């Protein structure tokens, strides 16, 4: 489907590096944006920036998305503020320290809550509205880490794997209503969230590259996107390694 100028776009987790790059693409295309995030000052920085760049109407809404009890009010407010939403993007998520999670259930729960439960909750509320109105897109940023559990990051991987399964079911359910659900599986992205890693090889993609891939795939209403493209093949191999071999690997 062609991108129509002037769409209403809602971005959850709008201060993430990829979300910022994506918002610039939408603003440049003449779309109206509603940015949702936790840090009010940073949201204001983005509103100012997008306003200068595009002259478009950009709004922001402060909310702690990990606070699930607040979701019904939040979704109501969003609907009051913007009545013609065509795409909802979900960018919020945390990348935890795996070893810390292994020692702490509280830390593990935090990851599951932010990366899976909070998105499932928002999707539940939003899906019931969009199923009455077709042509909407729900675009959710997951991760290649959800494709198979590995010792180095299985808590994070679990949150994303659960999310992927949830999205498969939701896509299946909403398809007949003409609503599009897209699972985005980025590989390594060079962002502040990954600042602790050394990034000396081609595997690291820029937020701008990932955002551009997401933008195009969402307009084409793809079901699933690996970005950059080569992760599709890497994860194909990883998913198909037999478990008796896989469990011995140091991944």
């Amino acid at each position, binding site marked *: 489907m062609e991108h129509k100028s002037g769409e209403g776009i809602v971005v959850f987790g709008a201060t993430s*590096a990829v979300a910022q790059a994506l918002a610039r693409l939408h603003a440049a295309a003449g779309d109206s944006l509603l940015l949702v995030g936790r840090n009010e000052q*940073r949201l204001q*920085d983005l509103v*100012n920036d997008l306003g*200068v760049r595009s002259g478009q109407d950009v709004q922001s809404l402060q909310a702690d998305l990990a606070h699930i009890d607040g979701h019904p009010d939040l979704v109501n407010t969003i609907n009051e503020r913007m009545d013609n939403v065509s795409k909802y993007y979900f960018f919020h998520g945390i990348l935890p320290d795996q070893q810390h999670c292994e020692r702490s259930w509280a830390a593990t729960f935090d990851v599951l809550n932010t990366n899976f439960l909070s998105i499932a909750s928002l999707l539940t509320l939003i899906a019931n509205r969009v199923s009455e109105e077709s042509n909407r897109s729900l675009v959710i940023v997951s991760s290649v880490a959800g494709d198979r559990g590995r010792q180095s990051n299985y808590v994070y991987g679990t949150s994303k794997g659960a999310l992927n399964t949830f999205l498969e079911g939701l896509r299946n359910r909403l398809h007949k209503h003409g609503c599009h659900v897209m699972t985005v599986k980025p590989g390594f992205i060079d962002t502040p969230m990954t600042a602790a890693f050394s*990034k000396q090889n081609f595997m690291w993609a820029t937020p701008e590259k990932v955002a551009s891939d997401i933008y195009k795939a969402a307009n084409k209403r793809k079901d699933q996107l690996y970005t950059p493209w080569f992760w599709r093949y890497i994860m194909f191999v990883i998913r198909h390694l037999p478990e008796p071999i896989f469990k011995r690997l140091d991944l």
Partner: protein
Amino acid sequence: MGKYRSWGYSPAQDQAAVRPGWRDFSLESIEGSLLPYGNGRSYGDSCLNSAGRVIDCRQLNRFIAFDREQGILRCEAGVSFEAILEVIVPAGWFLPVTPGTKFVTVGGAIANDIHGKNHHRDGTIGRHVRNFELLRSDGQKLLCSPESNPEFFSATIGGLGLTGCISWAEMQLIPISSSTVDVETSVFHGLDEFYELSAAAHEDYQYTIAWLDCVAEGDRFARGIFMKANHSAGGGIHPAKKSSLPLSVPINFPKWALNKYSVKAFNTCYFYSQKRHAGTNTRQQFDPFFYPLDGIENWNRIYGKDGFFQYQFIVPGSEKLVMDELLRQIVSSGLGSFLAVLKEFGAKKSPGMLSFPRPGICLALDLANRGTRTLRVLDELDQLVMKAGGIVYPAKDNRMSGGAFRAYYPQYEAFSRYIDPRFSSDFWKRVTNGT
């Protein structure tokens, strides 16, 4: 850690770095010595800090406010001139001063107090900066303007990033009624003809620039192409061209590709191709006029993996004999290259304490890196520039001696009071410690 390099392509180095994502960051918690890094368009070592960290400011790339009536733009320090042009040109505004590449950041432009083809009329960028915020390593945030913290305002303009980290800045733009420029081209043979052309154009033309053949000898000595231009009065506003970078130099050229004969052949071809335009008045988009090399990504690779030296100096307008001697030495060294740019600078004084630009004749040229031979030639040029009371540009420098720097910039001691105690650079260590 990351790979950081300067434009002169002294090999990209592993350089410890921090990359603030938002301008509310604090320097207090970061260890080691610090230096802001923008787009790495400085040619030498003034943008590197190998013993400490660089503060990679490229994520600070947001606009803050644009007053479309008054032409006042406020943005974060990592915003590039390219991004600014995309926003301001359609609104009928232009950069008050721009260097020959739009891939510089606002922070870098201020730190080097950049100049452009309109120096004779408008001075440096520092004259058009209204205010900025300076983050210091002790956690202070200084609002700097001619009225507020004026000494830090003055020290930071042209201060090579040593006084702290600029987080945002505000500048006054200039109005345009067209996105094109009207360019008149003429040929000159010898520096005297250049001085005449330049003096005659200063009153009525906002932009003047000359390309100089610094290889040709004999009758052809000091031949060149002089261009003068103004923003067109009509012609309409067309959006700034998004750089699609259609051309790129994919690899480092081998050493032998660049030699006396290939350079001579190139310069002769260029001279005659431009000569055809002599006396004509052409209207062109601003992009190719201001940024001729930005269309070729990584053009610096034509100099091969050994890179090149750029040498840019100003000698006072009264020292025409020294200028002549300098050019003769460059030609006879055989190290000159394609890119030599000649311009007469004007008297508009910059607020910058350590700024390079001043009235006089400015020549910038590339010299292939032939090791000690090139270094020796450059030291000899320094002697002449110093004797004439001239000055050399730190943003382009990779090799000047400490003695030369201190002779060019006697105010460096007064400037040192405003350096952030935790900031340093490879350049600064070299010129303040070395002999």
